[in-house]
């Protein structure tokens, strides 16, 4: 029992979050049907608790909260998808901003590597946000379901390479001097790195930006594999630089949602606060928990949320 205490606590928290989420509709109905004026506060409170649990899971799983937030809240809460996506971007943005300064100071995020990728991804995220807000909800919901299921498969199958060997940088990467040295505290040594396949990386980040804008997802789930497996950047530096990239890309897309009125602060603020408090606990759980347990839990949640979004979009499960 003692050895499994962190897993037990997290499992309990997940169950509590699930119970809160699952009981919300019944609470609302008990309060007088689908328009329960007296129970307006139930939903912001429920979204706060759910985000708290998601925040606890997101940090140890190495993902931003947005990828969990959007499918779960759009699937199980009454808020329109426009507001869920706007809030999803703000949640991912707040998490990235909170982590950004520390990552940049420690050298685990690299400005020189991130800036060119961020430029294309940000411009693409604006286009994605405009397209996402113009498309019919059923289409976005269906595409979201497919995307989330693909992310679950990616998390299940994707390999990681702690220190990918890059023999020679490509011409563009060399011209932009996308290389450097960072200090790995775990091994107490300096690690040299250089980027490869920069044009392909730029193209993939453009696609990632579109997805982030359309679905309101933070895109850490895609940034890290592209940086690590395609561009040959060490895993820790990939994860850190991904956080820096998100802090700009998500803000570009978030502005479109804000300016179009697709941000409801009464949902967004409890979500941000819940996610950040949960992440605070999650960062401590990271030291004691098995990452494989968290990873499997996240994949299970993504499968559930993906199926829910897909069936909702197709009109099979309203």
């Amino acid at each position, binding site marked *: 029992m003692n050895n499994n205490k962190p897993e037990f606590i997290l499992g309990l928290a997940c169950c509590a979050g699930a119970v809160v989420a699952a009981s919300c509709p019944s609470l*609302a109905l008990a309060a007088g049907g689908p*328009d329960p*004026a*007296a*129970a*307006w506060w139930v*939903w912001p409170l429920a979204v706060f608790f759910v985000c708290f649990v998601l925040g606890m899971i997101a940090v140890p799983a190495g993902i931003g909260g947005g990828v969990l937030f959007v499918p779960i809240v759009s699937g199980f809460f*009454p*808020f329109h998808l*426009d507001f869920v996506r*706007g809030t999803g971007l*703000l949640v991912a*943005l*707040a998490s990235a*901003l909170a982590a*950004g*300064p520390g990552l*940049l*100071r*420690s*050298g685990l995020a690299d*400005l*020189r590597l991130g*800036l060119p990728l961020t*430029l294309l991804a*940000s*411009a693409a995220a*604006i286009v994605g946000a405009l397209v996402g*807000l113009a498309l019919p909800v059923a289409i976005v919901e269906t595409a979201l379901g497919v995307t989330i299921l693909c992310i679950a498969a990616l998390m299940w199958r994707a390999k990681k390479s*702690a220190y990918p*060997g890059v023999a020679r940088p490509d011409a563009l990467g060399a*011209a*932009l*001097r996308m*290389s450097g*040295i*960072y*200090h790995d505290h775990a091994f107490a040594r*300096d*690690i*040299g*790195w*250089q980027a490869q396949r920069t044009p392909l990386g730029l193209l993939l980040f453009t696609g990632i930006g579109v997805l982030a804008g359309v679905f309101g997802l933070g895109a850490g789930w895609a940034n890290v594999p592209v940086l690590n497996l395609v561009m040959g950047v060490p895993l820790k530096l990939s994860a850190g630089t991904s956080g820096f990239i998100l*802090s*700009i890309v998500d*803000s*570009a*897309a978030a*502005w*479109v949602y*804000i*300016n*179009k*009125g697709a941000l*409801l*602060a009464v949902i967004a*603020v*409890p979500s*941000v*606060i819940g996610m950040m408090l949960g992440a605070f606990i999650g960062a401590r759980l990271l030291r004691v928990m098995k990452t494989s347990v968290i990873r499997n839990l996240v994949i299970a949640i993504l499968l559930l949320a993906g199926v829910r979004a897909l069936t909702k979009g197709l009109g099979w499960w309203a």
Partner: protein
Amino acid sequence: MVGVSEMNTGRGSGPSAEQLRYARILDYAMRAGLAVLVASFAVYVAGVLPAQVPFEALPRLWVLPAGEYLRESGMPTGWAWLAMLDRGDVLLFSGVAILAGASLPCLFALVPAYAARKDWAYLGITFALIGVLLLAASGVFGSP
């Protein structure tokens, strides 16, 4: 793994001076944004200021698409919220705007460093990124 001795990165170990400056400004902006967000939410839920949308109307409105919600609620779009800061729910946008704009001063702070070094490629990238963010924030895309 590529050992340090096997490659010439042209850069020393540790973050650059401009990266550290970027981190410092981002830290201030993030803290300011979160503080304003939490404080304005406390003002909102405590009912210190009147709300543009009454609490009891929220469940009827948050199920609507953004366009319909704006028509029904009279909430502002673009930067029109600046003229309605005496409303508790509109005041919340101030914290959101600070968070969403947190990267802009950091990017501006990179300009002198890249200009002094005559690093034209990164100067251009930084200006382009500032342009993209300003365009997004401008409200050009704000008509619902």
